[in-house]
């Protein structure tokens, strides 16, 4: 039988599911007082009027006043109207939605970490520094890149660091290199990060196989090329088998090879980045290393570099001296800082725990099974007639891309409609319409966290939908039916721009 899912749905009034907090509580009055000025302290210090001039005092605060049980229920209702990795398969391509081991979750809540001030003397935080230092070493071991910073708050933040390092390096060398090469199929953040660092982006079109077109690459490389940003396997899930030649071309031109680690889950423990000729890379701690995605963040984007670029990393670096650990701020060539303090430590310790849990063999096994799962699903979908536009004659890595354009052409059913209907079948849809070089794309990344039964259930759901598209396309076009809410009107949202409760109320009243 085909699996079904009915999401929880709270509806407390006409046309509204869960009301907003502003509708639940009286505005400008009430709330839970968690701390207050003691009478004695007030007597000692005096009246507020004596501290803050009246015209500078806060007037009404437009927050709602609720009680603790009301807040608890409200956000519990909202949680129930959301889908997470522990709910079921969540195959967002290039996002690596793997399961977070709960022992790993627990590490951030250690009192000694939670209460640690970022400027606390180093001798009082040796434990934290040791954990972070060990994490750097483990990331070095996986990538072959000797030096790491843990400061960047996310993958794109790491890309910015990488691009700035390349920029600073050439400024120091006195070379004017203002171009970064990026394959057309790359993650959108690559283009944006390169541009933020002041580079002109030069796009490399794909070959017929979906990999970097070597002819186009050769033609694009010039004395202006500072480097290339690449993800390998690429966003089609295809390993760039020419990677050594790509690296050689760049290196012989004096350019650097940057690796976008979003897809590292395909090759962790199988290929070292340094062996591919990578000079610098960011790793997504919240993807590959099991820290959860937090509904969009916080993540962490560790950046690793070869020795030649180590002096350019952001300050401070975590270093070891004998048996003690300290923060090194003395990096005259550093690009500077990209955020305050030392990074999203509560996220980073999870990667430490995850790698300790996996060990060397577990790291390799994780990627191996992630790739096995992806190949299994891809073949099953191909056997059902789904179209894999690129690389179908070779193994894929941890993800792959199918095109649903046939369904659009023949039955008027788009990838979007497939996605909506998948939700009714208890799975989170894959990344849609990416990469742009594939029409009606579904970019699917089953991680190592899904069982064979889950893989089969997903594939069966796809089969059911393909069948439905032929028989009863309207059924797909009206999906989803079992989620908390039916299809959302995005263009209405972009016209109205109700970006806060305040704006909504004003426009509704006018």
């Amino acid at each position, binding site marked *: 039988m085909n699996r079904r899912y009915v999401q929880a749905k709270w509806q407390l009034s006409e046309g509204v599911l869960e009301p907003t907090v502003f509708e639940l509580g009286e505005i400008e009055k009430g709330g839970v007082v968690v701390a207050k000025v003691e009478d004695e302290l007030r007597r000692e210090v005096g009246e507020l009027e004596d501290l803050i001039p009246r015209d500078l005092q806060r007037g009404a605060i437009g*927050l709602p006043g609720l009680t603790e049980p009301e807040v608890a229920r409200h956000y519990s209702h909202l949680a129930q109207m959301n889908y997470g990795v522990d709910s079921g398969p969540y195959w967002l391509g290039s996002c690596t939605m793997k399961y977070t081991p709960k022992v790993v979750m627990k590490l951030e809540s250690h009192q000694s970490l939670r209460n640690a001030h970022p400027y606390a003397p180093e001798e009082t935080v040796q434990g934290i520094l040791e954990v972070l230092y060990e994490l750097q070493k483990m990331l070095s071991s996986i990538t072959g890149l000797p030096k790491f910073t843990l400061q960047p708050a996310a993958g794109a933040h790491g890309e910015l660091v990488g691009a700035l390092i390349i920029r600073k390096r050439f400024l120091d060398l006195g070379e004017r290199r203002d171009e970064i090469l990026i394959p057309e199929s790359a993650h959108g953040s690559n283009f944006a990060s390169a541009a933020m660092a002041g580079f002109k982006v030069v796009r490399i079109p794909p070959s017929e196989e979906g990999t970097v077109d070597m002819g186009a690459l050769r033609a694009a490389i010039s004395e202006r090329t500072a480097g290339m940003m690449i993800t390998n396997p690429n966003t089609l899930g295809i390993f760039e088998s020419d990677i050594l030649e790509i690296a050689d071309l760049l290196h012989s031109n004096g350019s650097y090879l940057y690796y976008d680690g979003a897809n590292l889950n395909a090759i962790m423990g199988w290929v070292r980045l340094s062996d591919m000729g990578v000079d610098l890379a960011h790793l997504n701690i919240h993807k590959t290393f099991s820290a959860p995605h937090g509904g969009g963040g916080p993540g962490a984007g560790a950046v690793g570099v070869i020795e030649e670029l180590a002096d350019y990393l952001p300050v401070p670096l975590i270093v070891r001296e004998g048996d003690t650990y300290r923060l090194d701020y003395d990096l005259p060539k550093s690009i*500077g*800082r990209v955020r305050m303090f030392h990074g999203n430590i509560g996220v980073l310790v999870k990667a430490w725990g995850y790698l300790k849990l996996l060990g060397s063999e577990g790291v390799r096994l994780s990627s191996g099974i992630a790739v096995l799962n992806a190949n299994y699903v891809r073949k099953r979908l191909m056997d059902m007639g789904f179209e894999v536009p690129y690389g179908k004659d070779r193994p894929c890595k941890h993800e792959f891309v199918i095109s649903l354009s046939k369904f659009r052409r023949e039955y008027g059913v788009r990838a979007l409609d497939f996605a909506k209907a998948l939700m009714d079948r208890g799975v989170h849809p894959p990344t849609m319409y990416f990469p742009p070089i594939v029409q009606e794309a579904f970019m699917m990344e089953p991680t190592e966290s899904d069982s064979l039964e889950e893989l089969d259930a997903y594939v069966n759901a796809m089969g059911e939908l393909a069948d439905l598209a032929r028989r009863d396309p309207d059924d797909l076009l009206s999906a989803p039916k079992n989620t908390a809410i039916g299809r*959302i009107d995005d263009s209405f949202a972009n016209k109205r721009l109700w970006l806060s409760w305040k704006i909504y109320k004003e426009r509704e009243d006018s």
Partner: protein
Amino acid sequence: MPMPAEGLIPNASDPIISEMLNYLGINKLEDLFSDVPGSILMNEPTEIGKPLTQSEVEALYNEKLEKNVSVKLSFMGGGLADHYVPPLVDELVTNQEFYSSYTPYQPEISQGILQALFEYQSLMAELLGMDVVNASLYDYASALGEAGRFSVRVTKRKKILLASTTHPERKAVLKTYMEPLDVQIVEINREAGGEISLDELSANMDEDVGMVYLETPNFFGVVERKIEDAADMVHSKEALLVVGTDPLLAGIVKPPGELGADVVIGEGQHLGGYMSYGGPSLGIFAVKKSFRHIRQLPGRLIGMTKTVDKMYRGYTMVLQTREQHIRQEEATSNITTNSSLMAVRAAIYLALLGPDGIRSVAEKILYNTEYLKRKLGSLPCFNIQFKGSLHFKEIPVVSEVSWSEVNSWLLRNGILGAFQVSKLFPDVDPTGKLGLLSTTEKHRLADLDLLLGLMREVCS
């Protein structure tokens, strides 16, 4: 015995692997890597070590963290302080539906996180007196970097005036973010009282200036009392006034949005987050409802909308055409993963505390600050810098006793003492005498007296 990793990977058992390989018509996992040049395929495993069991991981971690020196009270300032986190906040964000989901690209199955983020945007807008708050940036400093880039996009001008009293790490981040844009940054000095010098601001305001930035409270804990005057000056030259703030200050002092700020940024970690050695953090970015500004916002935005059949109110991401996954190098920012769960923390915190709770926390911090200022200032070896000004949370203390002596004495008594400014920022305080203490709502009067007693002792 299966290794611990196998307990995390459902298909890792030999029979299942064989069945799947068989279906694929291959013999071993290695065959799936046949497209990787043989010369780079690893033969020996990485050097991460043997896998540990869950209990071993926890034990090892606890053993390492025991090397930290635990304190019972933290009074250290410098940008983060030890706030009280209501247990309800922790409880609710441990819902896996919140923490394990990702960016809500599919709104119908993600209404929960979308509404929670919409509420964050709305609650924060109310608190700061602004209209539109994005769904989060990384932290306060990167929000300043984004504000600088925002000002260039909006005004097309390449000069920024920056209050010299800005936190040095935020200055550094702004510099990093602006360097590729070739933007000139000019520092505006402070008056004797620690607030920005309006005379100097006025003297430097010209038509090239796109953005003026000041913080309240600033690095020295001083609350700016003349933001409205600064706003008039800035607006007379059609530049943007960007104000950095501690959102808790708005519980008791008129918020920047009511004082003429065009953009408000700040650190939201104070609202229901832990220090955690610096992060995860929460970058706040707020603007007024000028369409021109909203179009140029960095980061994600959640909007309220309706279902296609117009029967229900719902939520979805809006103005995605500003973002990197669509606009690539033309995007307003490269930000992708942000700090959503921290924004959900802040939303729950603000919803729980409400107007009375927020006011009460802010008042407690203000009273604690004032109490410590007066008592410390009356001790013979300590002076309060900018004594006559209004301070909030952070207290700049000039000590005649070496800070290392004071701090080790406090540490021996279970207290984390001042942040000695010269340790990291010798330019800001070449004397070595300046320390930043902070106090929060977590500190009871008895805690303040304990600190004062110890500091009195070190003085005698």
